[in-house]
C-alpha cells in the first residue's frame, strides 16, 4: 500500500475541510471496496482517506411516500436492498445492488461509492439514472444538486471539484403507472463486471407511455442516458414495435470498446437486448 493517512470526519463540513486540506490526492472513504484496492494497486494516487461513515447524513436511508427515497452516500448496499420500502418502491435499485460483488462487498460498498468511482460499468448507475436519482454534493461553496445522469465526464472521472463530495442521493416518489428495472449481461451470475447493462423506467397512463427513461452501462466512456430510446416509447402504447425501436436507438448510441469482457459488436447487440428486456420488466412491475 502507498503511504496513506486516515482521518475520520465528524460532520459534513469537517469532511469538506479535510478534503480541501488534503488536496487533490485526498479521497472520500465510504466502503473502500474500490478505493482501497485502487490505492494499493496504485491506480489512483491517494495520500489521505477521509472516512465519512461516522457522520449520520452520509449513512441515512429514509423513505417517505410524498418525498421519495434518500440514500446516504456511504450507506452500505445490504441495508439499501434489505429495506422493505426500497424493495417495494425501487426494485431497480435492488436489481443492481444485489449483484455488485459478493456479500462481503455488499456489507461495505455503497451507491455513493459506485457513483464517486464513476466506472462506466458501475452496476447501480443506469438504475439510479432511470429512477431520476439526484446527488446532493457538499463543497467549499456550499451544496448543489446534480442529476446522476449528468455526473460523469469519463472513465473514473466526474464533475466533483476539489473539496467536494457526495452527501446523499435522492429519488423521487413513485407515482401511479410507473415501473423500472435494471439488468446486466455477465458470463456468470455474480462477482463479475458487466459486459453491458441497461436500466429502464416507464410511465404508462391510459394505455399509452407518457414518459420514459433508458440508461446504458459499460457501452461507452460513461454511463449513457439514452434519450432517443426513451423517445421511441413516449406518446404511444407499449408494443413489440416500439420496444424494438427503443432497443435499436439504444444500440445506436452505444459506443463501446472491445476488451477481455466483450467485443464492440456483442456490446451493441446487448444494448438492444437489455434495453428491450428491461422495458418489458419495467412495464410488468407497474402496480
Amino acid at each position, binding site marked *: 500500500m502507498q503511504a496513506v493517512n486516515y482521518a475520520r470526519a465528524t460532520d459534513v463540513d469537517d469532511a469538506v475541510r479535510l478534503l480541501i486540506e488534503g488536496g487533490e490526492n485526498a479521497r472520500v472513504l465510504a466502503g473502500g471496496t474500490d478505493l482501497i*484496492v485502487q490505492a494499493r494497486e496504485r491506480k489512483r494516487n491517494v495520500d489521505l482517506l477521509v472516512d465519512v461513515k461516522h457522520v449520520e447524513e452520509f449513512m441515512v436511508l429514509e423513505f417517505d411516500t410524498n418525498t421519495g427515497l434518500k440514500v446516504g452516500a456511504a450507506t452500505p448496499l445490504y441495508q439499501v436492498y434489505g429495506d422493505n420500502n426500497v424493495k417495494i418502491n425501487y426494485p431497480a435499485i435492488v436489481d443492481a445492488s444485489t449483484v455488485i460483488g*459478493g456479500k462481503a462487498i455488499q456489507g461495505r460498498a455503497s451507491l455513493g461509492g459506485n457513483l464517486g468511482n464513476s466506472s462506466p460499468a458501475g452496476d447501480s448507475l443506469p438504475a439510479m439514472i432511470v429512477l431520476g436519482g439526484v446527488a446532493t454534493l457538499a463543497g467549499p461553496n456550499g451544496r448543489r444538486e446534480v442529476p446522476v445522469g449528468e455526473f460523469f465526464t469519463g472513465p473514473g472521472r466526474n464533475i466533483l471539484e476539489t473539496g467536494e463530495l457526495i452527501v446523499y442521493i435522492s429519488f423521487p416518489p413513485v407515482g401511479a403507472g410507473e415501473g423500472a428495472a435494471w439488468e446486466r449481461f455477465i458470463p456468470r451470475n455474480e462477482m463479475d463486471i458487466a459486459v453491458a447493462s441497461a436500466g429502464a423506467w416507464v410511465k404508462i397512463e391510459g394505455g399509452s407511455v407518457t414518459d420514459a427513461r433508458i440508461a446504458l452501462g459499460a457501452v461507452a466512456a460513461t454511463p449513457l442516458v439514452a434519450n432517443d430510446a426513451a423517445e421511441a416509447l413516449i406518446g404511444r402504447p407499449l408494443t413489440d414495435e416500439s420496444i424494438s425501436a427503443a432497443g435499436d436507438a439504444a444500440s445506436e448510441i452505444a459506443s463501446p470498446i472491445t476488451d477481455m469482457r466483450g467485443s464492440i459488436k456483442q456490446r451493441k447487440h446487448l444494448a438492444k437486448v437489455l434495453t428491450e428486456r428491461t422495458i418489458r420488466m419495467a412495464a410488468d412491475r407497474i402496480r
Partner: protein
Amino acid sequence: MIPEPKVVNTIINGDSKQILVSERDSLLEALRDRIGMTGAKEGCNNGNCGACAVIMDGRLVNSCCVMAAEVEGAEIMTVEGLASRDELHPLQTEFLDNAALQCGICTPGFLMSSYALLQENPDPTEEEARFWLAGNLCRCTGYDKIIDSVLTVAKG
C-alpha cells in the same frame, strides 16, 4: 510521507485489543502482521477471493478492503473465534467430516462466510447458499462439498 504509527482500539473475538498499526495497514495486515492472528488469509488482496473474510460489527467483510484505522471502536470476529474453548464449531466439524477442504487457504474465509450466512438465514436453499458464498473462491476442492457441509449444518 511516512504515516505515523497509530493505536487502534477494537474488540476481537470478544477480547479488547489495542493494535499498533501504520495508517497504511489494511485490517488483514493488522491482524496477521501486527498481532499474529493468521487465521484470515491473504489471497487476491483485492476483494475477489474472500480468503480474508471476517465479521465486522456483525457484517461479513473482506479484511483486505478495510483499513486498520477504520476498526477503531468496532467489533471483529475472525475464524479464531469460531470454535469454543474445546469444541470446534459445527461448520468446522462438518467441513472436516465432509472433506470440504484440501490446501485450506480458502477455508477460513468460507467458514466465516458460511457462519454469516447461517446467522442471517439459518435454513438457506442450495441456491441461496451458493449465491451467498459466491464471493469465496476455492481452487482445490470445488464447491459441492462446501455447499453440502453448510446445508448439512443448517439442517442440524
